[in-house]
Every structure is written in structure tokens, then in C-alpha cells.
């Protein structure tokens, strides 16, 4: 490039949903990042319409506690809770990873790849463990 040729300004844009899902092959840390956002949004949406009503029913009375897991409603509930438990576990694990990154730990590419993989695996394992615990109670 010649000296007097002006460099074009770089254009900065947010990633669109299409970019994330179709155009780019995201590296593992990128996948953890978008799943962190998706799981957070999911938990936010579920909060007043699923999670708090569910909490109310679970602590309301021994009868409402016992009724949670019964019938078709109980099956549906378990399915929804399975997704939300995963969302919670992923958000928690990825969140702990981001806190360590904020403190300047694990910033190398190799370390970041490793910790991203760890987050995905550990959150799935925790989901299975707590789903089994939940299915035992409900």
C-alpha cells in the first residue's frame, strides 16, 4: 500500500442472528458466549410466568407441592424445567468463566478453548444430575 493512499475506516457492527447461526462457524468460546445470552434471556422470560409461580406452588402447601409432578401437566413441567435447569447451569458455569476472564485469567487462546469446552460439558453434567434429583422428587 502506498504511503499517501488513505486506509478506509473499519466498520464495526454487532453480529446479527444470521451471522451467528449461518454465516460464521463460531469457535467454542463464541458458542459459549451466545448460549450465555440465550440462556439468560430464557431465564428472564421464564421468571414471572414460570419460575415464580412454580416457586409459589412448591412452597404453598404440602398438597400443591405434591401435585406439581402429577398428570400431563407434570410431564410438561418436567420438560420445561429440564430446559430451564440447563439454562441456569450454563449461565452459572459460563458466568464463572467470564468472571475469571474479567480478572485476567485464562485469556490465552488455548486456555479459552479449554475453559469453553469445560463450561459446555460441566453444565450438561450438572443438568443431568439435578434433573435426576428433580425427577426423584416430582
Amino acid at each position: 500500500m502506498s504511503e499517501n493512499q488513505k486506509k478506509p475506516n473499519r466498520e464495526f457492527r454487532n453480529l446479527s442472528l444470521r451471522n451467528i447461526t449461518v454465516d460464521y462457524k463460531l469457535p467454542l468460546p463464541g458458542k459459549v458466549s451466545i448460549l450465555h445470552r440465550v440462556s439468560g434471556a430464557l431465564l428472564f422470560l421464564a421468571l414471572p410466568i414460570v419460575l415464580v409461580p412454580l416457586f409459589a406452588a412448591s412452597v404453598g402447601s404440602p398438597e400443591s407441592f405434591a401435585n406439581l409432578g402429577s398428570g400431563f401437566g407434570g410431564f410438561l413441567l418436567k420438560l420445561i424445567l429440564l430446559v430451564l435447569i440447563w439454562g441456569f447451569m450454563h449461565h452459572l458455569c459460563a458466568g464463572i468463566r467470564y468472571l475469571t476472564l474479567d480478572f485476567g485469567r485464562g485469556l490465552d487462546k488455548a486456555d479459552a478453548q479449554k475453559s469453553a469446552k469445560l463450561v459446555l460439558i460441566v453444565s450438561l453434567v450438572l443438568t443431568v444430575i439435578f434433573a435426576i434429583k428433580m425427577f426423584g422428587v416430582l
Partner: protein
Amino acid sequence: MEHRYEQYGHKRLAVGSGYGTMDFIAQRTTAIILAVYSILFLLAVIFTKIDYDSWTNLFTFTWFGGFPTGKISTTLAFLALAYHAWVGVRDIWMDYVTCATLRLSLQVLTVMWLVSSVVYFASVLWSL
């Protein structure tokens, strides 16, 4: 060139953050509170035989013969959750919604959604 002298009245800049550092810190602070509460809660759940009484006790246990440690810590955690969710969801609107009217409307709805959750949750918890 910024025309700051034009930013008054209806021309005032009403979008964007402008308080980014404060919310950056708040998001991390609340994250730490939530992580600590969540890990203790998950440990309690996994090592407890869960039935109605033990489950309710996770939120209502007391110390020193009456101090409502369970209710107060749970309430504080829920408030941290609401603030944490506010920062995160606001970030989502700021990233993807560029129309100022729509963005501001979504932000107002987000606050209402979260405040409703806090009030609803607190009323259930403190009536136990």
C-alpha cells in the same frame, strides 16, 4: 464534531448507556452474589432429602432462634437477580434494537417485568 449545545429539551440524547461503567460493575457484583447463593443452594439441594418441609426450610430457616436468615438472603439474592437481569436484557436491546422508540419501550417493559417478579416473589416468600 459533537453538537452538544443542541442536546436539550426534545433534542436531548435519550438513548445509549452513558452509565456503562456503573452497570458493568453492578452486573459483576450481582453475578458474584448470585453465584455464591446458587452454589450454596445447589449444594443444599443435592445433599438434602427433598420433601415439602425440607424444601420450604431452604428459604425460611432462621438463626439465633428467630432471625430470618433464609428469607433475607433469598430476598437479597432475588434483588441481585433483578438488577443483573436488567443489565443483561438492556444489553440485548441495545445490541439488536436500533429504533429508539422501540428500544425505550422494550426497556420500560423489561423494568415492569422484573419489578413484577420481585413483588410477586417477595409476597410469596414473606407470607411463609
